């Protein structure tokens, strides 16, 4: 699991506990690598149950946007030019 650290008006980074409101899984769900995928399935189930697109759930449209961005990255490397991102 990632942990978040921050510093404000200080040179010392300290841990910032992650609020429970971002955790949508039961406490017995394994922490570690499967956790975020569990979060995904939770939102996907919600989308199916309600018939409503969940604003926090990455969809195929999110994926298309990233595919296009990776194409721009590839194109920049191939041409050696800095490019605008559509």
């Amino acid at each position, binding site marked *: 699991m*990632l942990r978040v650290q921050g510093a404000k*008006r200080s040179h010392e980074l300290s841990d910032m506990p992650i609020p429970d409101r971002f955790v949508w899984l039961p406490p017995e769900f394994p922490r570690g690598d499967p956790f975020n995928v569990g979060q*995904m399935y939770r*939102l*996907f189930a919600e989308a199916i149950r309600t018939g409503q697109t969940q604003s*926090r759930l990455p969809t195929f449209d999110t994926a*298309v946007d990233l595919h296009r961005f*990776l194409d721009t990255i*590839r194109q920049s490397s191939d041409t050696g030019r800095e*490019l605008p991102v559509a």
Partner: protein
Amino acid sequence: MAVVVRVPAHYEPTRAAIEAGKHVYTEWPLGRTTAEAEELAALARARDVQTACGLQSRVSPALLYMKEQIEAGFVGEVLSCHADCMRDGALERPSSRTWQRDASLGANPLTIANGHVIDALRFVVGNFTRVSAMLTTQARQWYETDTKKMVDVTAPDNILVSGKLASGAVASVHVAAVPWAGGGIADGDLRARRDTDGDRQRLVTARRDAAGAGGEA
């Protein structure tokens, strides 16, 4: 339906699911190419099914919290940010696992490791408006352990991206699969790091507690 097979095989079962009117969750990358992904997204919209694609950084509690804090002004105006992830890149694999060397199959460090890392950065800090990149293949051959042959690699294993974000911040990203880079047990891995972090009001997600892979943003 969930599509969790190899990337080049995502398209067929995903399309079949949508055509059968099923809601579908497909792992990232959605398609082998952008064209495949666009076709699937358009089809899902036309058939009015729910979709999900496994870009799970966007539901990470740590990254959701970071995004919220940045939007709430924790660091003030974001001027500059960086993300990197340097992982072990295998030089030897069984022939069942060497297909990823083919860039055209769309499952390599550019699309997978970099896809996830750069998506996390875009999610937390915002989208790029200008970008400049260098993609290279540093390990140009792999050894197939069962056939005992060297095979050529066309997929990039080092992805260096710099750019400007919509917010005006600048960003740099380096994602790499490098032989012997894993977990701080590398042969010939040197690091220099300051004892104290001199940056003021910096917000970072720290490295994973156990693994050596970086996860800073």
